[in-house]
């Protein structure tokens, strides 16, 4: 029954301290969406298979749907609502300029993965892009534009 008891967590979310009450095993995704009403991080599969829920935990792209709140309670968490800075701007501008999104549902996750890639690898090779983005599914097939937008963003960051 211990799993069911709720605790209060103080998250470092998008540069702010945010308190919430949740069970230790409640996934970060549902804390964000249902407890804190931050709906930019999306539910796609619940099993870490599609990447729609990608957030940054200490800068590392992380699937929020399979990450218990307890595991990340003390680390800085960034969601699509909180990204800023040069890399994020370059990525989101490239995404807009190249009309990447179709339905757009997976795009917050795609953008989070792309930002994490370029923050670490400013001039990624094709293989780097493949490796960083292969866990983010898109049913609309925005992939060619995702690839192009990452190259455009990398170019603009030089």
């Amino acid at each position, binding site marked *: 029954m211990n799993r069911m008891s709720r605790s209060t967590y103080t998250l470092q979310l998008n540069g702010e301290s945010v308190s919430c009450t949740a069970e230790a095993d409640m996934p970060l995704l549902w804390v964000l969406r*249902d407890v804190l009403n931050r709906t930019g991080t999306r539910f796609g599969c*619940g099993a870490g298979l599609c990447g729609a829920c990608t957030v940054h935990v200490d800068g590392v792209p992380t699937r929020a749907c399979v990450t218990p709140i307890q595991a990340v309670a003390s680390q800085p968490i960034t969601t699509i609502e909180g990204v800023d800075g040069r890399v994020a701007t370059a990525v989101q501008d490239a995404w807009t300029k190249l009309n990447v999104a179709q339905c*757009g549902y997976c795009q917050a996750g795609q953008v989070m993965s792309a930002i994490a890639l370029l923050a670490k690898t400013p001039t990624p090779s094709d293989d780097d892009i493949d490796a960083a983005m292969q866990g983010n599914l*898109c049913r609309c097939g925005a992939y060619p534009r995702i690839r192009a937008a990452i190259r455009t963003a990398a170019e603009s960051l030089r």
Partner: protein
Amino acid sequence: MRRRTFLLAGLGAGGALVFGWSLTPPRQRLHGRTRPLTEGGTIALNGWLMIAPDDTVTVVSPKAEMGQGIHTALAMLIAEELSCEWAKVRTVHSPIDRIYNNIAAIVDGLPIHSDLDDHLAVRGVRWLTAKMMREVGVMMTGGSSSVRDCWTIARQAGATAREALVLAASARSGVPVADCRVQSGVVICGRQRFRFGELVADAATQRPTEVRLKAPSEFQLIGKPMPRLDARDKARGTATFGIDVRPAGVRYAAVAMAPAADMKPVSFDEAAARARPGVLDVVPLAGSPFGDRPGVAVIADSWWRAKQALAAMPISWSPTAHTQLSDTTITAKLLTAVSREGGLPFRSVGEGREVLTGASRVLEATYEAPYLAHATMEPMNATVLVENKAVTVWTGTQVPGFARKAASTIAGVDEEQVTLHQQLLGGGFGRRLDVDYIAQATAVAKAMPGVPIQLIWSREDDFRHDFYRPAAVSHLRAAINGGALAGIVARSASQAPFREYSKRVGLVFTTAGPDRTTAEGTWDQPYEIPSLHVTHADVELPIPVGSWRSVGHSHQAFFYESFLDEIAAALKTDPLRFRLGLLERHTRAARVLRMAADRAGWSEAPGEAPDGQPIARGVALHFSFGTLVAHVAEVSISPAREIRVHRIVCAVDCGLVVNPDGAAQQVEGAILDGLGTALHGALRIEQGQVTTRNFDGSRPLRLPEVPRLEVHFVPSTDTPTGLGEPALPGVAPAVANAVFRLTGYRLRALPLRLPPEPI
């Protein structure tokens, strides 16, 4: 386009509100009975656009935005004629009204071969059907029909509003109408200039009597690549979908549904669920004719807690009679059905099936395609608030009218008492033509009146409770005489998806008679084959089926275009030259095919893959939704016998292209949907239950597998035709035809898999 001037006598903004609805002509699609929601001084000049005092133009879209970019395209059509400032344009979803009924999808969906398009009787039938659909039709986004459906009315709406603004400016300035001109959101009357925002209140009382639409040569916006209006919001994650609505006091529901069509919950341990944190209610569900199955829902203060409580609650289900039903036994059943004579004839020309009797040689092949799930990235969800005599629904749907009907039926209120707030759709692909999830959410919300309930399906629910593309098989025979193709006899078997859909939603005029979606893609192609005989056997099975992007075309194109390739090979003819030889009188089709082949460099050697493996090209041509598409695929085989696609060149003739960049986006997406399902798409069924549960069981295309795509449009000023679906069907056969050229092995089943050892 033949008639660019239309009259609006006696139809001002005020008059339209009380206008009777007896057999309304096209121009009366301008004004609805339900006015679009206006606020802050914003005024609707007709049912399609509103203007605010600050000059913001709000385009009112009856079409659901599900990724296809229709809001941008529709805004371009309206802004073109309105002559407003593009930067001031925004879009909203429309209310439900008869003026928004989809005429094009139904009229162009009539089972008539395109060779007969100009026939007088065919034009008469289309005219009558259009008239009928304006009265009893359906508000629907689907069938690649949105631009076709709005092409004239949206421009008329923009032009009529512009004329009203000019009349208002003329009255205010005293300058004759003929001396007023409109430029970028301003009416210029001599030295005086009036912004649209200043004029809109006066314009609402004006009644333009004659309005002229621009000729294509005058277009400023249409035909130019325009950025999507939703691009930035979607890149920032600020665009909101149905699953993101948060009405005050919202609670969340998770659901367990009967695993097979004939099962229902017998008992469940309600107390176990209620003992979990955050649980507010446990709701047994009876299911409904809209397609939602019996089950049990749990309502809690977060969706995860509802889902946890559901998992903690043992449910015992009644047994199923379908213990022998699996994807394998279904294929066997379809093969039996296809081997019998009879079935519904869709087309018989020349000697019909008799052509086989006198043939010197008969080629024969049987093709198979599996069930496919839609798997939209946003799982099914709806938020419903049931109050005394009022129901509010927030959801993303391709059919707002049916959604409202489902909510009203389940809640037991009149349709007028239901308010539907259309949301952005996180993918549609035909799945959101069904309203089962809306009926189900209403049933759950009824248990807690006064509380908005957001019902969300898990990905597992989504895979297991879809309305799938039906599994299908086709038996094809070709009669060869004197070294030439004399005729084709094609006979396919599958469930009838549109008929079953019609029964679920109560679309009465398509619940009986032949379902054209079963055999489309074979009988309706442009090839000049001396004798053609196409039949289809409908098979009933307890697996729910519906419209999956491009519907029958999605598998019939694979069957037919692969088989044509087999015939070309048997006749020792180049597959491109063989097809062109069957298109001598169909110059439009031949031109598309040549364009794809030329751009791909068909006559040059295709080279080799980076690892030195040889590359071969395959070709396919397909006609669907009024649009011709040709694909050339470049393919190699890895040492591990995997099919690798390096490049797809695609040529499209869809008439005039409204937004070239948006159109290219649709074609790219359709190609990759076609490629992903050709390579990986399958659905497992055991004991009458779908056992594919998540993206690990039906692998979608991933970024590293994406080939180089080249999309070319045939320049045209013809009326636009469909685009969301037509580039999908030809991908699988183009790839399979390339595999044949490489290996000599003919792949006759989807998904495409080479046997482990070289043949």
